[in-house]
């Protein structure tokens, strides 16, 4: 009898705790619902010839017309394919370069001069707060052919004979874009890792020093393992954002010469939807992006299940 009362009260307690946990999660659920699920009703625009300002009920229903348009013509297909290819390339490079902030943070933390360390950290973090428009002006003033200081320097040093038009080149577009992004974001991204390093127990280093570990060994055996978890968490988070490359950077750097390699999906949607006012068509492309993202997610899920025996679903 007593046991059954105890069990009942335990059950009650765990039920109440369940509610509490649910309440803790509720704001996030509502947040996700509002900002991630509600906007999905905008997908309906892709099957109507949407006229801004008109309620959807008064717009002409066109069914799958815009989806057909996406694939009906070889040039349109190529545009979509190129945008997809560029997106994958940029994301791929993003993953490849993802250890860089971690490495940078290690280097920073190993600096002996505190003043110099702070100086480097400030200088590398500052560009994060500058908009891409300003960054472009900066890059243009550095790299332009007529009086950009890089070209002037290279010519005067005799490295090149004629100035190189770096900005209007279709060579290495992905790498240069990633380079600009790293320049802008490296210092900022390193902050999380610096925090992780600060969290590593100093006694470990002292013990290692007593054991005769040199600097590199301390980094490799203590610092890196101490940060790796943070690295993977960030990597997984960035994978969740797989196709969201953003468009600002590519928008300001695009020109006729590099457009084939710079137009990522987000920029393509922007150019068509906002740039050209084709909202329905741009929505159709946006849906295609989501579709690709779902397929990618399914693939990663399958991979995780096969390799690690663990998956989301």
């Amino acid at each position, binding site marked *: 009898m007593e046991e059954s009362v105890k069990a009942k009260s335990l059950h009650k307690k765990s039920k109440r705790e369940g509610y509490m946990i649910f309440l803790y999660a509720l704001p996030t659920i509502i947040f996700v619902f509002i900002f991630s699920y509600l906007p999905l009703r905008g997908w309906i625009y892709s099957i109507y010839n949407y006229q801004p*300002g008109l309620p959807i009920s008064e717009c002409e229903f066109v069914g799958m017309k815009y989806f057909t348009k996406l694939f009906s013509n070889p040039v349109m297909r190529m*545009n979509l394919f190129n945008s997809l290819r560029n997106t994958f390339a940029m994301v791929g490079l993003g993953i490849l370069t993802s250890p860089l902030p971690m490495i940078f943070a290690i280097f920073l933390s190993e600096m002996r001069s505190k003043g110099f360390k702070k100086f480097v950290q400030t200088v590398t973090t500052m560009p994060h707060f500058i908009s891409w428009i300003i960054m472009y002006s900066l890059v243009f003033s550095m790299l332009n*052919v*007529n009086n950009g200081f890089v070209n002037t320097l290279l010519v005067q040093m005799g490295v090149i004979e004629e100035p190189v038009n770096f900005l209007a080149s279709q060579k290495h577009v992905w790498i240069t874009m990633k380079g600009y992004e790293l320049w802008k974001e490296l210092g900022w991204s390193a902050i999380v890792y610096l925090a992780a390093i600060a969290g590593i127990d100093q006694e470990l280093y002292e013990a290692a020093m007593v054991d005769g570990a040199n600097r590199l060994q301390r980094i490799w055996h203590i610092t890196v393992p101490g940060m790796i978890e943070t690295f993977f968490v960030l990597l997984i988070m960035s994978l969740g954002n797989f196709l969201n490359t953003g468009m600002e950077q590519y928008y300001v750097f695009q*020109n006729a010469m590099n457009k084939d390699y710079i137009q990522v999906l987000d920029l393509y949607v922007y*150019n068509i*939807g906002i*740039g*050209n006012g084709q909202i329905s068509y741009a929505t159709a492309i946006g849906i295609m992006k989501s579709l690709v993202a779902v397929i990618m997610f399914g693939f990663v899920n399958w991979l995780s299940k096969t390799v690690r025996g663990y998956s989301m679903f």
Partner: protein
Amino acid sequence: MKASKKVLTLFLAAAMVVSAFAGCSKGNDESSSTANESSQSSQAGDSSTEPAGNTGEVTTLDYYISTTAVSGPVTGWLGDYLKENGLALNIIAGSEEKMQAYLAGGDLPDLMSFNTWDSVTKAIAGKMLVNLDEHLDKLPNVTANVPEAIEYTRDNRSNGTGNLYVIPSSIGDSYFPVDTGVYSINVRWDIYEKIGCPKAETLEDLIPIFKQMQEAYPETEDGTKTYAMNLFSSWDGTTKMAAVNNVITTLGYMESFYQYFADLNLETGEINSIFDDDSTYLRALKFFYQLNQEGLLDPDAITQTYEAAKAKVDSGAYVAIGYAGYKDGFNTPEHVDADEPVGYMPIIFDEYKACVIGDATVGSTRNQLGISAVSSKVDACLQYINLTADYDALLTLNNGPQGELWDINDEGEVYATEKYWDCYNSNGGKLTLSNGEELHPGFTYEYVIANTQAHPTYNVPIGIGNWPDVIEGTQKNKLTEAWSDDNDGYMFPIQKMEAEGRVYKRPLAHTLMETTPDDIALLQQAIAQIVIQNSWKMAYAKDEAEFNSLWDDMKTQAEALDVQEVIDWATDSWNKGMEIAKQYVE
């Protein structure tokens, strides 16, 4: 303690949810009208426009202008003048993107100055605009001064409703008193004279001339290397390579018609595909290609913005400039009236035919004025529109307060005051008022009636810069004299051009073309992307083989996208425009 933590947690969660919802809620658009008490004395002129019911209260209007880059309240003498009329304007600088966002959102600012008829059509379809037919009694200046424009707009630009939703702007005759403005190729006349003023028959003959000029003047005083033609890509947008206008408009072809992938010859009226192997478009690209081969094309052209190119024009770093090469920045009084004058003047090669802006009998193709359907200040908006269609008010709006730079003499004639000439002679041409304020601090607005239109009482164009004595006094200088000596003694280029029948005005049909249907616009944008890209690549092609292969590639891709459909639509729309124009032009 625990309980208080729980309460705090719940409170924060609730606050987050509420703020999230608040972010989504539709903004309350009833921005209050500020009733500023006008305390500042004003030097504004004695315009005859007395706003109906002006009780001394000032209504602030949010005014979206698609063609200005400066946001913020209108202050200074213009602000004072508007305040006298019970108005204050808060300018919202526009852009193509912002326009789309406003249209998608549905709630427009009080007063709108649209960028295209296409946007107007969308706004009408979305029921975002006030039907002005219901308020014509409050637009007496508009109905009296621009009746054709109203009739035209109602008949052709009402999205089939037959109502008047916008009032077009810049209505009036076009006016080229000195030269054809940007519809010419201007060369650094001082350098051109140095190389002996060689004559050119064709466009291509200009290339060796430019080369000689570049050799004579390889870099500016500050060491910037010189090039020919101020090309840049920031005006390309989504439909065209704007740089082509440099060539098209000097060969008698209509500006920007190639955005429909066709050349329109204004002399013959013929419309042909730009993909024909003898097209003017291809000729323009070849011209750029040859310039590049000769080291005359600015390598930064493709990446520089208009502002960067303009800064170079202003410093005289191009030996020749074309469309968008506004030469005033370099042709300053100090330059053009120096003992050895320097400056840009048009080179009149034998083949040159200027395609210039035509008379805007029913208004320009942009800056149409409309009132937002959700505005609570419709009367004030109407008052503003009516004010900008009043000839006397326009004298002040364009030229500043009466008694400053202009005045009316005892014979009832308008004239430029001593102050105006002082500004011209000693202030580097910068027009400033007595209080030191600039007349046009970096921006001007488009009004219902153009400043080139003649004032009915004074029989001179509204804008002071176009008054005969002002033109004579400001445009005649040592540079124009030098030009005149080399050009059969004509005082100004326009006189030679007109005498030789080389000026072609854009027909009214240009402003009367239909709104591009969505299907065509989609096609147009997709083709344009290829055309813009390949055109720039062709200009910078390494050799003839690469040039031709890019051309073939562009042609093949455009044909695969059914470019003929766009050309056919544009031809049809142009022909319809020509028919409609007959109703409005005698």
